[in-house]
């Protein structure tokens, strides 16, 4: 890292010039400064990794940060739809945590959290012991409510994939699509909102249609949406479907999947309509991740976690902050990686202020979500969210934000630049 090398050079130069160590800037002396607190971050996704980095950065090393993440590497959900279409190598989604350790002094622990003891302020793990905290940030992402879809048991899940967490299922779904005969039907079900990544299912439909159009032109993409309309960039997605995928994509709103039959590879909705597909991709409804549930943080609709929007502290449990997809979001705030990054920074800022003996202040947040509609063309939705003291929640700034005029190649380039930048931004 250049800045680290610079600091090191400056430090050596300063000492060489006989300047007293006490006169050096805070950066070089961070280790000698008194710790102002301990923070444990649970989950190293877009939100958690960002929070860990900025707690170290903004406290100038005075907050001891432990990041507990069960996976040895970060795998990005954003851009994973490109893998399904064969436009991206899966390995480009994989990123290590070494940068957080080496550049920022974050302590990485690869273990599963088994409990948060709020009374004793300790996080317990399955095989790495316990970690004391002053504040804990819970960033567990989502887990699926498989029991809301009859027949979606463990055996069925071997065959009927969701691929809504990037990882082995992403590659497995790609294999199913490759093996699908020309003329086959790929069916995707979408749960009722709120769900992770509002434009994600529609992007997936576009990218898979793009792949099929070139490689298996007799095939169809069937989009079965439990919602009454396209949940994000509606006009743009509808326009692309009409212009480019009219013969391929069939979109059906108000189609709420309630059961699957793995033997038949079929899905049935609440009206009893059944669809059989060559490749069946069922995304179940989800809720805040398991640890949020076991720690008693879920207090909205038995699915999501409500927070104080100044500190991102849970309204259910004190000193426990929740960020990312696990949140009950503010109005028009999507469950996106970009948004989780912003939550992570907001929580880090609040905790730095609190542990410094100052009151936390609300901060602005912004979102940008890109979607690809084929190998090269991208489009976006963007918004800015400002805290409203009366409503005690961030509200979208009127007149700000919006969507692309049309999908185009320039925005495709920016979409990929966004991904490469945010991965570096959160992990190095």
């Amino acid at each position: 890292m250049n800045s680290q090398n610079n600091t090191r050079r400056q430090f050596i130069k300063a000492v060489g010039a006989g300047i007293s160590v006490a006169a050096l800037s805070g950066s070089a002396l961070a280790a000698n400064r008194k710790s102002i607190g301990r923070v444990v971050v649970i989950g190293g996704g877009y939100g958690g990794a960002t929070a860990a980095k900025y707690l170290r950065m903004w406290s100038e090393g005075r907050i001891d940060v432990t990041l507990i993440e069960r996976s040895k590497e970060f795998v990005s959900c954003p851009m994973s739809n490109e893998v399904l279409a064969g436009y991206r190598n899966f390995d480009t989604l994989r990123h290590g945590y070494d940068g957080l350790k080496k550049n920022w002094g974050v302590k990485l622990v690869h273990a599963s959290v088994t409990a948060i003891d709020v009374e004793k302020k300790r996080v317990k793990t399955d095989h790495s012991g316990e970690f004391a905290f002053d504040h804990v940030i819970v960033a567990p992402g989502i887990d699926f409510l498989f029991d809301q879809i009859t027949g979606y048991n463990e055996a069925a899940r071997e065959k009927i994939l969701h691929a809504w967490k990037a990882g082995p299922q992403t590659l497995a779904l790609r294999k199913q699509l490759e093996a699908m005969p020309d003329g086959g039907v790929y069916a995707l079900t979408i749960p009722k909102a709120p769900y992770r990544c509002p434009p994600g299912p529609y992007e997936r439909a576009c990218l898979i249609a793009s792949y099929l159009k070139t490689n298996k032109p007799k095939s169809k993409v069937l989009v079965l949406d439990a919602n009454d309309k396209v949940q994000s960039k509606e006009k743009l997605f509808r326009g692309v479907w009409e212009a480019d995928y009219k013969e391929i994509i069939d979109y059906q709103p108000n189609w709420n999947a309630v059961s699957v039959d793995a033997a038949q590879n079929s899905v049935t909705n609440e009206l009893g309509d059944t669809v059989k597909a060559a490749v069946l991709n069922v995304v179940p409804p989800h809720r805040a991740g398991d640890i949020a549930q076991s720690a008693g943080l879920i207090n909205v609709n038995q699915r999501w976690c409500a927070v104080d929007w100044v500190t991102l502290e849970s309204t259910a449990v004190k000193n426990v902050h929740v960020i990312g997809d696990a949140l009950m979001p503010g109005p028009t705030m999507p469950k996106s990686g970009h948004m989780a990054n912003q939550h992570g920074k907001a929580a880090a800022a609040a905790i730095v202020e609190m542990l410094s003996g100052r009151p936390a202040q609300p901060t602005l947040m912004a979102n940008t979500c890109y979607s690809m509609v084929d190998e090269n063309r991208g489009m976006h939705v963007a918004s800015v969210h400002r805290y409203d003291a009366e409503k005690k929640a961030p509200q979208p700034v009127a007149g700000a934000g919006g969507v692309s005029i049309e999908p185009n190649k320039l925005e495709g380039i920016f979409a990929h630049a966004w991904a490469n930048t945010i991965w570096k931004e959160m992990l190095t």
Partner: protein
Amino acid sequence: MSPARILATLGMACISLPTFAQSPAPNYFVANCFNCHGTEGRGHSTIPALAGLSKTYIIEQMNAFKAGTRQATLMHQLSKGYTDDEIAIAAAYFAAQKK
């Protein structure tokens, strides 16, 4: 202590020490820009870096995005979410960062 020993000690100290940037406290919102423009505005992509640009230039560009006199894919939309004061604070912050 010999110079080599001093350097060795410093080397060890520096390896174990993270590097800390200028904190934007209390204006943490400037970090909103980092997502796309890189930490402290030092991105390396087709999205422009902001670190080291002049304060005046950044303010002028943001005003042009707001007014619609500079074409953009999305900055004309995001810029409208920030007040003139906030833009001045962010511009001063990025102007003070090393390229």
